[in-house]
């Protein structure tokens, strides 16, 4: 008997638990890989389609790697694809989008930071009421305010101009950005603000010297949010930008929707990738910041 016990002890469990690949584990990976395929597929299809010539596309094998790589569609999409009116490719849209996005982002963030600061640190009368209205504003369907805005822009002579579309983006970015800053500032210790006031700093001194230096992280989030948001906008560009300032998304839709001549699917896909390139680059470079932006942008109250 004793010998058996001793042997048991000798062979008994010791050290790390032997790893067994469980069915559940395999299931987890299968599901994730399946989902990843579903999500990655369109990007893959976009890329391969843009690198094929039309003859190969007509064979109807969208998943196949191009038999012969061609970069012609990319060049065409950039500089010579037709929108029905002109044949300048998507290039003018790209530059228009930059002209719209850069000032809109800067303007909206500056105003929102000041607003958020005023709302959270300087508790003026009715601050809570304004805050409630802001939340409301963040959720209101654009359609409800778009027409009055058209009329207003016409009255002041900014309809279908570059400043006009910039102002529109600034206005519509305001609720969510103000919320973002207000929530961030509210999470800062109020003692900091009190200490600055005891030190004799005023509204603007506190804003520039104390609050803004601490708002760098949230400002990065705000920039990501606004750059992707404004670049991806279609509706406002369509309605407010006017023909000369058409952003890339509108241009893209016009190119794809053009029915004259044969449909150049490869050129369309190249133009689509080009349009998505800027926000995708922002996404891949910013990584975790992008996720934070979503979470922050999604918060309420």
């Amino acid at each position, binding site marked *: 008997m004793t010998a058996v016990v001793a042997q048991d002890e000798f062979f008994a469990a010791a050290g790390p638990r032997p790893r067994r690949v469980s069915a559940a584990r395999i299931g987890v990976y299968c599901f994730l890989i399946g989902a990843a395929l579903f999500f990655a597929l369109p990007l893959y299809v976009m890329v391969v389609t843009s690198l094929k010539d039309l003859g190969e596309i007509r064979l109807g094998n969208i998943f196949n790697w191009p038999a012969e790589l061609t970069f012609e569609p990319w060049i065409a999409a950039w500089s010579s694809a037709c929108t029905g009116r002109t044949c300048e490719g998507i290039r003018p849209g790209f530059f228009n989008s930059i002209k719209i996005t850069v000032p809109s982002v800067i303007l909206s963030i500056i105003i929102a930071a000041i607003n958020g600061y005023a709302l959270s640190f300087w508790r003026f009368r009715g601050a809570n009421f304004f805050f409630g209205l802001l939340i409301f504003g963040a*959720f209101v369907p654009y359609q409800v305010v778009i027409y009055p805005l058209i009329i207003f822009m016409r009255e002041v002579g900014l309809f279908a101009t570059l400043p006009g579309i910039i102002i529109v983006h600034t206005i519509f970015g305001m609720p969510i950005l103000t919320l973002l800053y207000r929530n961030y500032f509210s999470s800062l210790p109020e003692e900091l603000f009190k200490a600055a006031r005891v030190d004799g700093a005023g509204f603007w001194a506190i804003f520039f010297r104390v609050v803004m230096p601490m708002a760098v992280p949230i400002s990065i989030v705000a920039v990501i949010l606004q750059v992707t948001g404004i670049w991806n906008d279609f509706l406002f560009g369509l309605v407010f930008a006017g023909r000369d300032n058409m952003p890339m998304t509108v241009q893209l839709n016009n190119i794809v929707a053009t029915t004259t001549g044969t449909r150049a699917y490869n050129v369309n896909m190249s133009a689509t990738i080009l349009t998505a390139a800027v926000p995708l680059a922002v996404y891949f470079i910013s990584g975790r910041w992008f996720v934070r932006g*979503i979470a922050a942008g999604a918060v309420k109250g």
Partner: protein
Amino acid sequence: MIAVGVGLYVVGIGYSVALSFTNSKLLPKFDTFVGLANYDRLWSTGRWLISVENIWLFGLLSIALNMLLGFLLAAFMDRRVRYEDTFRTILLYPYAMSLIVTGLVWQWMMDPGLGIQSAMQNWGFAGFSFAPLTNPDTAIFGVVIAGVWQGTGVTMAILLAGLRGIDEDIWKAARVDGIPTWRTYVFIALPMLRGALATAFVLQAVSVVRVYDLIVGLTGGGPGIATEMPAKFVIDHITNRVNVSLGMAAATMMLLPIILLIGINLFIDWRRKAVAMRAAT
């Protein structure tokens, strides 16, 4: 400055609602008030009725799928998988892309002659059929697929962040208690994710109400008017169709669900405060 910004919203909304009681066509005119006539007309316009039906179908289906898939993905991602960053990057990138882009890509993928359907048939699955956009009865499901593709990553990211925020000790306690992993997720983690779930839901709901670009890019509202949506109805009526007052009546209707949503939110807040007050006393 805030006052001006907020004022603009309030005045704008008021202006839109007021216009819906006039008979403005191309330009706003406040001389003839027609009462609820525009609403009468709206609710007897086939295009609007289909739009409303579509947004319900699209909203319920896409939000349900989105939340279900998003939660499953978040839970699986939370299981200490390898290459988590890679998976997350892949699941989330569609959200970085414009809805117009999403629409155009899926339009191409669902092309009956050259898309997935033909590729599968060329691979030997002769009976394979997947071209929802060509049939008015199924087109809306094509829109749902594209919408879910674009938005699920966000739900996953929000819920995953929520899961990561749960106290590590809770998982340990559940293991000591011998609670199976899936039960821990469903009975313990899920109820703790209420905040994250609400956030994800509101985000999706708002994007459903606003859905416009996706339709323009994917179907243009077609085939026929099979995938028209309220947001598109409004824009079309104030631009191409020059019937501002009808468009504004539709816009006012769109405001209702949002007001309802905020109302529910306020009610929940109020109730939570009431419960907290009771617990405190």
